[in-house]
């Protein structure tokens, strides 16, 4: 309600040009980053290899993908950990 009032009086809400520009940016990052499922799978495997050198991770429930937050796009990986490896060396 307040937002729409501010919009009406040209307050600090975004112009439709700014909205268009920001949406364009986000959609292009997505489009350009979109990679084939095979490549995504390879990336997933490599990330897992690196991380499992240090931690005992739950391979099956790992989740990786692109996510949009506000005006930015990020590669987001969710990798549940079961246990630290070498607890003697790496506890901090």
């Amino acid at each position: 309600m307040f937002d729409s009032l501010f919009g009406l009086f040209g307050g600090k809400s975004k112009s439709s040009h700014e909205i268009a520009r920001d949406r364009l940016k986000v959609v292009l990052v997505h489009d350009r980053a979109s990679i084939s499922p095979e490549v995504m799978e390879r990336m997933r495997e490599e990330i897992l290899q690196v991380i499992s050198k240090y931690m005992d991770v739950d391979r099956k429930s790992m989740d990786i993908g692109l996510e949009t937050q506000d005006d930015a796009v990020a590669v987001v990986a969710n990798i549940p950990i079961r246990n630290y490896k070498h607890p003697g060396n790496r506890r901090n």
Partner: protein
Amino acid sequence: MSEVIVVTSGKGGVGKTTTTANIGMGLAARGKKVVLVDTDTGLRNLDLLLGLERRIVYTLVDVIQQRVGYRQALVRHKKYENLYLLATSQIADKTAITPSQMAELVKNMRDDFDYILIDCPAGIEQGFQTAVVGADWALVITMPEVAAVRDADKIIGKLLADEKKVKLVVNRIRPEIVARGDMLTMEDIDDTLGVERIGHIPDDATVIDAANIGVPVVENENSQAGKAYRNLVGRIMGESIPFMEFSGPSFFDRLKALFGR
């Protein structure tokens, strides 16, 4: 030495055929020998925009299937005798011509013309591949809208991967909406696409009149769009021409913007 340019866009209806017709006629008016090739098989329109629809006997498909030589299929413009059209079939579909057949044809036509302009169908399927394959560079047409710029970006990615040079034309700009701050600007588009822009064309009712009568707007001395197309033609010929400023919104437009919402 001929130059082969494909006019393409990704998204449909943004002005590929209109631009092909105007550049073609503009180059012819400047004394160049030009052929326009319609590759939108099944949905041909270039003949209409040039006022040549009643003179087509043979088509691109007849040439590809070797029923006639390409010279026999060319239709010569009445006013500009150095302007030719190679229309396509309205009955066949896009699978009638393969990219390698098209490449071969374009190669053979090079000796006869200064410019070969290829009007590409919408989309990124076989029709696109066929249109693009023989070209030296691509003129990508877009509009100041998110969807059109997004599709242009996809097409540009494909063209650059194929090592084609790309230049951009932004069509259907509405100066009064840009002035109001409600439209993607040329800077936004340049920043996101990152390719050289060599034309911008206003949205203009004279373009529609021109399509109705079959005489491209580039011939209209009193039209803003006509002037923008003449400038584009000059730039394609290598001239450096400053970009025109469109007259901003009228007082009436501003009043409407103020009270109309």
